[in-house]
């Protein structure tokens, strides 16, 4: 017994050594592609802006000041809360949330459908779902505009069926942006849910039916809790990029439906930009996303404990 324990511990320490080396690629990816850019952003957001793009290496809170406080046109009035950017943030959250709900409403049944096909047919369905995404996002978003415009196929179809009398104005509305975001990120909703449903043991649904649960109750009480990690992953994977997206709002939303992504993008484009302000807006966005995720995780943990 003692010999076994000694052998075991020495084996596991060898293991740990090897693991240290093997983890190097993972650590470097995390360091260079996650941590370093964030630190760079953080540093830039506290620097002074250069007028034709770029930064001057001098500490400054100007970027955050500009984001939150309104000091009048010439900067000499007593500071008031600057609502412009907060409103843009709020609209972004709202748009991304709506797009996430749309993706969930369409993505869940799609994923369920694919996962319940015969095992051989499933890869084909997944393949079909992903094919449109081989086309560049810009081109897909522009095509969406053509689909939705007043003389576009959607309106033509609705007019033909008699559902409407005159073409709907969809382009340049919130709905257009939501549809654009929904279409851009739908596979990110479908794939994790598909993976979860595929792993789900359908004998559990049978057991629930055997115990007098209706189809709807079985879905709500048995299937959904089992595939929740997939649903949560899908929602995060759609919500987060939607929040920072600028293609769909720029191309489909018009000037009035500006989102954070566009705001940040502007700051780094051409000579008119303000790098520290863009960096500050990015940091605020990042903080906001982290806070939202944290709040969600806390609420989940509390719900878990309650049951």
């Amino acid at each position, binding site marked *: 017994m003692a010999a076994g324990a000694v052998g075991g511990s020495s084996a596991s320490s060898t293991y740990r050594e090897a693991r240290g080396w093997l983890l190097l690629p993972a650590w470097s990816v995390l360091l260079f592609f996650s941590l370093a850019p964030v630190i760079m952003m953080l540093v830039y957001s506290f620097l002074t802006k250069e007028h034709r793009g770029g930064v001057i290496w001098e500490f400054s809170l100007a970027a955050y000041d500009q984001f939150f406080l309104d000091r009048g046109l010439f900067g000499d009035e007593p500071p008031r809360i600057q609502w412009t950017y907060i409103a843009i943030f709020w609209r972004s959250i709202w748009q991304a949330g709506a797009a996430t709900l749309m993706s969930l409403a369409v993505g869940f049944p799609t994923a369920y459908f694919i996962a319940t096909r015969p095992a051989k047919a499933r890869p084909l369905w997944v393949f079909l779902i992903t094919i449109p995404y081989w086309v560049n996002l810009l081109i897909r978003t522009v095509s969406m505009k053509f689909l939705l415009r007043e003389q576009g196929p959607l309106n033509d179809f609705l007019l033909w069926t008699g559902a409407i009398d005159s073409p709907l104005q969809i382009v340049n509305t919130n709905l257009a942006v939501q549809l654009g975001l929904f279409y851009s990120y739908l596979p990110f909703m479908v794939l994790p849910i598909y993976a979860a449903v595929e792993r789900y*043991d359908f*004998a*559990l649904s*049978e*057991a*629930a*039916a*055997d*115990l*007098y*649960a*209706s189809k709807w*109750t079985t879905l709500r009480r*048995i299937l959904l*809790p*089992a595939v929740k990690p997939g649903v949560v992953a899908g929602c995060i994977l759609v919500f987060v990029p939607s929040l920072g997206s600028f293609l769909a709002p720029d191309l489909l939303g018009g000037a009035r439906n500006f989102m954070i992504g566009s705001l940040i993008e502007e700051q780094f484009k051409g000579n008119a930009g303000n790098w520290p302000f863009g960096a500050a807006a990015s940091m605020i966005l990042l903080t906001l996303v982290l806070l939202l995720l944290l709040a969600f995780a806390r609420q989940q943990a509390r719900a878990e404990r309650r049951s």
Partner: protein
Amino acid sequence: MQTKMPETSSQNAIDVQNAVKRFGNFTALKQISLAIADNEFFTLLGPSGCGKTTLLRIIAGFDEVTEGSVRLYGEDLGALPPNRRPVNTVFQSYALFPHMSVLQNVGFGLEMLGSSSTEARECAGRMLELVQLSQFADRRPGQLSGGQQQRVALARALAPQPKLLLLDEPLSALDLKLRKAMRIELKHLQRETGITFIFVTHDQEEALTMSDRIAVMSEGELQQVGAAREIYERPRNRFVANFIGDTNLLEVTVDRIEGARATCHLGGGHALSCEAVDGVREGARVHLSVRPERLFATAEPAGPEALAARVVETVFTGTGITSIVELEQGPRLTLRSSNSERGNRRVFEQGAACFVNMEAGAGRLLID
């Protein structure tokens, strides 16, 4: 011995008529007809893959018959969904809800039937006491051993007090001691609750000790349906004779059938008499099954039908002694006698010459 059940009656818990189940071009059930009485402890016994689970799934409503019909207390089940059938199942794979506590699992059915959650919890608590798992009520199924999970599955299926309980190998994951205790417990429970049980197993001892009646299945067909004793003592065919207990098979030719008696002879011409059987005609070459414990050896022939033999091997097995003897005509027979004074007198040394005698009514003609 129990009398045969009537073929159809509204008193029957389950009436399966000419049920056929095909998966693609594979036929899992071939023309099964079966009537199970109310309050009966009925066992489906058969080797792996013979269609036991398939039949249960049809009764529970997870699968539909390709042909034929299933009636529950006289009512055609047709395409009635499983949640509308007063039938519960103990699944072969347990299928416990992983995100619910043991108590919630057991209370689920009651809750679905409209009990208040306190009522459901109380009843679930009682069921857990019954299967001796009260101290695990708050655990998740994943934190239990296989045998404990199986008992939770049992409690969960019993809690809503169904009219019919389907048990798919519910004791297979338990160790021998617990399995034996649970056998008695289950049998007791069935008597007490009056719930009709359809119990699936491939363990013949389990089937023999618990059941009112047993259906022996093989390759999607019912081979024989009857009380434990009937199946053991009067097997219909070679499959049943071999599957339940050990047996000796002798090739015989039937010479004459007079009323309930048949006379036949072995390869060497030695005459034997036994009970006549439906489906075996004069002149047929068939097998005669004789259980090892119904053969005994003597130094002098005990009757006109005694067979001369020589002892090949004698093995002491604790409660009994098993001898293998070789007949003059060639075939070998296995004899078993109990380890008692009387039994020991019938045991011979290896190599000794002796006579093998059959107890009256021990030989059974098989139809194939």
